[in-house]
């Protein structure tokens, strides 16, 4: 880690003195130009004065998720740190579901906002120092190898997903370096291809109907907390797997009973803790196809379930 300079980081995150107490209470600061309540801020069209708070909270959520995913897989990660970050994520998500902020986030994507790039910036700052550390130690043996699109698509487990999923598969591989650049290129392309509303699913359709919105919120709450625990589970599930106490009874263990040790490592890499230094979660979001099927954990393929788990995390963020 290079010498820390606080000032630049604060600027990146868009907050001058970061998370002061008063910045968490709604409606206190940063009144945007209130011309009839119409938001001039392009990033959160429709949001009110608490948009700055929401933006900061969102940044914190993104940062936390990235921290959970970025791991030095050479040495076992610090459990205390992971637990604290996971608790922070849970806290943010609880608060976000309580005040229905999922809606606002959804709308943010409606407008093809610049917020993904903002998050990218935050990610960049985080990941710059990490890049060197992310090691391609556990080399992919499934056909992610080389991260070439043709190979990825050719993999039978991924055949059912559309081409724009290839980028996400690139992310799932541990190989860093040129692979990531390939992934980024793919994202740019798929951004152009994919329409903005494509990812947003049911929440978007029911915008007009207030009753449905409430239902959705409730559903989102349940789903997000369920998926939340699932994604949290992935973080600690990895620890569980690593520590091997459950032995042959573990469901995941069964999946890999006929697979050799190198696949075992691959699995722990893929479930929840993945190196994604240059891809922010929203890039992943943009590249995932709208027609992505429902989670099928019964699938024999670990990469398929990984996609699902990643999907769950994305769904939590977007709430769709």
């Amino acid at each position, binding site marked *: *880690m290079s*010498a*820390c300079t*606080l*000032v630049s*980081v*604060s600027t990146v*995150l868009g*907050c001058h*003195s*970061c*998370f*002061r*107490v008063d910045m*968490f209470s709604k409606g206190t600061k940063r009144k945007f130009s209130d011309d009839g309540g119409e938001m001039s801020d392009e990033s959160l069209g429709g949001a009110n004065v608490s948009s700055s708070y929401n933006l*900061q*909270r969102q940044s*914190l959520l993104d*940062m936390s998720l990235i*921290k959970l995913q970025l791991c030095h*897989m*050479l*040495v*076992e990660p*610090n*459990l*205390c*740190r992971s*637990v*604290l970050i*996971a*608790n*922070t994520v849970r*806290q*943010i998500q609880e608060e976000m579901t309580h005040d229905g902020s999922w809606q606002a986030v959804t709308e943010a994507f409606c407008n093809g906002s610049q917020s993904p790039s903002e998050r990218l910036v935050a990610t960049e*700052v*985080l990941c710059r120092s990490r890049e060197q550390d992310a090691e391609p130690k*556990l080399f992919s043996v499934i056909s992610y190898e080389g991260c070439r699109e043709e190979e990825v698509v050719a993999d039978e487990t991924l055949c059912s997903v559309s081409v724009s999923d290839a980028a996400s598969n690139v992310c799932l591989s541990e190989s860093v370096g040129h692979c990531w650049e390939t992934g980024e290129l793919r994202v740019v392309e798929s951004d152009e291809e994919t329409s903005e509303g494509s990812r947003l699913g049911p929440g978007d359709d029911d915008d007009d109907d207030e009753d449905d919105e409430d239902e959705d919120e409730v559903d989102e709450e349940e789903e997000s907390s369920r998926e939340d*625990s*699932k994604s*949290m*589970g992935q973080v*600690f*599930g990895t*620890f*569980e797997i*690593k*520590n*091997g*106490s459950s032995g042959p009874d573990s469901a995941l263990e069964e999946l890999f009973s006929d697979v050799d*040790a190198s696949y075992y*490592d691959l699995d*722990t890499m893929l479930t929840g803790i993945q190196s994604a230094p240059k891809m922010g979660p929203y890039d992943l979001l943009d590249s995932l196809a709208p027609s992505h099927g429902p989670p099928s954990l019964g699938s024999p393929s670990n990469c398929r379930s990984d996609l699902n788990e990643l999907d769950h995390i994305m769904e939590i963020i977007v709430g769709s």
Partner: protein
Amino acid sequence: MGEDSESPKINHSFLRDYVTEADVISTVEFNQTGDLLATGDRGGRVVIFQREPEDKGGREELGDAGEYNVYSTFQSHEPDFDYLKSLEIEEKINKIRWLPQQNAAHFLLSTNDKTIKLWKVSERDRRPEGYNLKDEEGRLKDISTVTSLQVPVLKPADLMVEVRPRRVFANGHTYHVNSISVNSDGETYLSADDLRINMWHLAITDRSFNIVDIKPANMEDLTEVITASEFHPKHCHLFVYSSSKGTLRLCDMRASALCDKHSKIFEEPEDPGNRSFFSEIISSVSDVKFSHSGRYLLTRDYLTTKVWDLNMEKGPIETYQVHDYLRSKLCSLYENDCIFDKFECVWNSTDSVIMTGTYNSFFRMFDREAGRGVTLEAWRESSKPRAVLRTRRVYTGGRRRRGDVGVDSLDFTKKILHMAWHPAENIIAIATTNNLYIFQDRVHPENQ
């Protein structure tokens, strides 16, 4: 190593800042008499310093009287590899604890993330001479040359310090060991990792008793880990452990074999006015220490250090702000991971002063009676040997004095995490990244 006016303008700063990863000190500990000081580093080495005997002839202002010099160095732990998980096990020494001395030899426990080792440190300053069958170099003599018998005698020889591993306590921990603590009974000790605490007998290496287990049945439900643990200095059945949620649990081993149920829980209710997303992280206790008297507990969380009375569970009796000016910077400190730094805290010998570290090579000392704190600096640029430490200040508003450091100028890579206080005198050992500073109070060498 300051820049002299005579030397050409070569920029040596890169040399100054270059730190070998392996040399980073990771733990510091005095033994029970204070004559020995052990440090452990990230490379798995232990360096033991010994205090030179003070010259009683009143020549303390000269020479090395009362100073610590290197006594022995040895490699305690080697890097290891867990083949099942395909992960490296760091050789970094997390903690060193000395055993009370029982004979001429000294014993210490050192631990890395997984394995605890008992080391015997002994001196040899004599050697036998006058063997009948061997000559001085140890070569076998030709028997025909031996005409008379002699009894070998011990003759003084150069002092040799031998360090040998006597026990290896392995395979006791699935998670990373963060604390070890020797019991007052002199026979047992505890080792704590993130989720479990084990009790060992010093003579038995193939077995340990699990006394605390907070691992949930479903790891998805994990929200709290153990951060530190220590035995009571006088009561061999009591120990305390701290958690990442800021709670302290006092456990009595007489109550049950598995001490998952605490006897007392010490927790300060959260201040709703100060609540933020970082509240939990900054409440995580990084270190807990019993006072020498056994009556109080000292804890350190990210921004404060607190003194607790064992008789009062509802909150600390004293709270000291270590670096409150960081409260508005928590977001940045979260981003660069500094918010997860684990600072240690220590008592002085009479439990009247407490000390802990902070950033920018600063450390803080709080006088409990006066209720005041000072900031001192451990940085070779500003302290020559035997110079008096001057107090420092972080500028947070008001009148700015010369020498004040602004909050944005603080160097967060220079953190003082590890320190120790001599058990009887006012001598402190402060570990910066790869340097050890030993400060002695010449004015009041012993506490009144």
